[in-house]
């Protein structure tokens, strides 16, 4: 429509990661990006308020997110029989066929639950595999691993069709809860001593924070390696007899290069870490849905 050239469109993508909400707002006018802002929100209330404001400012807004539940997957066919073979009940799922070759499915219950979870209308709900699928260029014996703070999503392609997909969650040890607190009586406190103790405590806390972060990172890397081991084993045992050429890690949490070395050493596989903008990819998918 002629008017569309003069009207701003807001593409909003968000997802929950480690109890925080990451949101990207892109303002587009006449197919040109005129404003982009990324935010990290602490709770759902903030997210709802921000989206409410954007909705009021931009009547042409498109909100998109993806499903993070485990009850979703890929089937290397669009045929219902293939679902029946895999003992997936068609009536309990919602599936979409991609290029008439393969399909993504999600549990109907999870889809409805996600819609009800927010008081705003989500225009596009994608499978978590969709952003990976749209990004993946080489799709023959390639494994793509999307890493979020609390989730690992794996999809493996053979002859341009995803034949294997898996979702697993990263469990983190709650180190902060291990700190016992000493209770002192007020009259026992010596001010000078207290201040010097505070400074020491602060320095100790900083060190502890750093070591906690390192520990968390190592835990994540360990879990990624373990998940990959399990997935590769499963892949070779049940899905393909061909060798995987490469693992592409789609990094959204700034992992660093250690994981690359670990995969090479532990799994003996060629791999590559790619900085992945998941929110931007979601917005690209949304734009594809409305042909912008």
């Amino acid at each position, binding site marked *: 429509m002629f*008017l*569309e050239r003069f*009207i701003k469109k807001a593409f909003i993508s968000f997802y929950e990661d480690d109890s925080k909400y990451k949101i990207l707002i892109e303002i587009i006018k006449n197919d040109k990006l005129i404003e982009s802002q990324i935010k990290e929100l602490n709770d759902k209330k903030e997210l709802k308020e921000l989206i409410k404001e954007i909705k*009021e*400012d931009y*009547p*042409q*807004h*498109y909100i*998109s997110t993806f*499903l993070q539940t485990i009850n979703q997957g890929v089937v290397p066919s669009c045929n219902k029989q293939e679902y029946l073979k895999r003992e997936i009940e068609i009536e309990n799922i*919602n599936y*979409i066929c*991609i290029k008439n070759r393969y399909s*993504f499915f*999600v549990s109907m219950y999870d*889809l409805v639950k996600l*819609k009800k979870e927010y008081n705003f*209308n*989500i*225009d*596009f*709900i*994608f*499978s978590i595999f*969709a952003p990976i*699928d*749209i990004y993946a260029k080489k799709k023959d014996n390639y494994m793509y691993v999307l890493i979020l703070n609390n989730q690992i999503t794996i999809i493996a392609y053979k002859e341009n069709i995803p034949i294997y997909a898996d979702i697993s969650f990263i469990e983190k040890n709650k180190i902060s809860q291990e700190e016992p607190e000493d209770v002192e009586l007020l009259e026992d406190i010596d001010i000078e001593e207290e201040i010097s103790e505070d400074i020491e405590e602060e320095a100790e806390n900083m060190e502890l924070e750093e070591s906690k972060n390192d520990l968390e990172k190592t835990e994540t890397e360990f879990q990624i390696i373990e998940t990959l081991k399990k997935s590769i084993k499963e892949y070779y045992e049940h899905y393909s007899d061909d060798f995987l050429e490469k693992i592409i890690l789609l990094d959204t949490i700034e992992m660093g290069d250690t994981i690359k070395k670990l995969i090479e050493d532990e799994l003996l596989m060629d791999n590559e870490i790619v900085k992945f903008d998941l929110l931007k990819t979601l917005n690209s*998918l*949304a734009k*594809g*849905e*409305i042909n912008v």
Partner: protein
Amino acid sequence: MYSFTKAKKKNYFKEDTKLWLIFYFISVFLYVSFALFLLVKSYFYTKYYQSNNQNIMILNTKISSLSLQKENIKLQKTLYENIMVKNSLIKDSIKNLLDLIPDPITLNKFLLKKNSLIIYGITPTKDVYNLLMLPPLESIFSNTKTIFYQMPNGWYKFKSINTLKGNNETAFN
């Protein structure tokens, strides 16, 4: 198409923008209508003006023609008045003349001109004429000449030529 859901149809404008646009379009519509009204009015006014101009031209022509007629009528009126005055004068002159004629003298005819009077008539005697008629004629005219012709019964036909000074003549029978 990767989405499990379809986007709802979006409005192009905010609610307050919609209201604002409605008022804007109403005012534009009113402006345009008023402009059209003025255009039509001006068109008809131009037409009316042209037709009036034509009427004025026609009326001007009529006025000039009427002025001519008026002039003619004025001339005719003057002429008529002149004629009336002259007729009245002539009438008076004839009355005076007829009053001049004594009973014994009979007039056959007379020619009354601007500066002359010629009288043809019959008188029983030259003396009757010379006593009763000649004196008043001589008192009026500067020159009076009478020619007598005796008829078989002894009476006289006469022709009296009386002239005033000047030669312009206008004859009346």
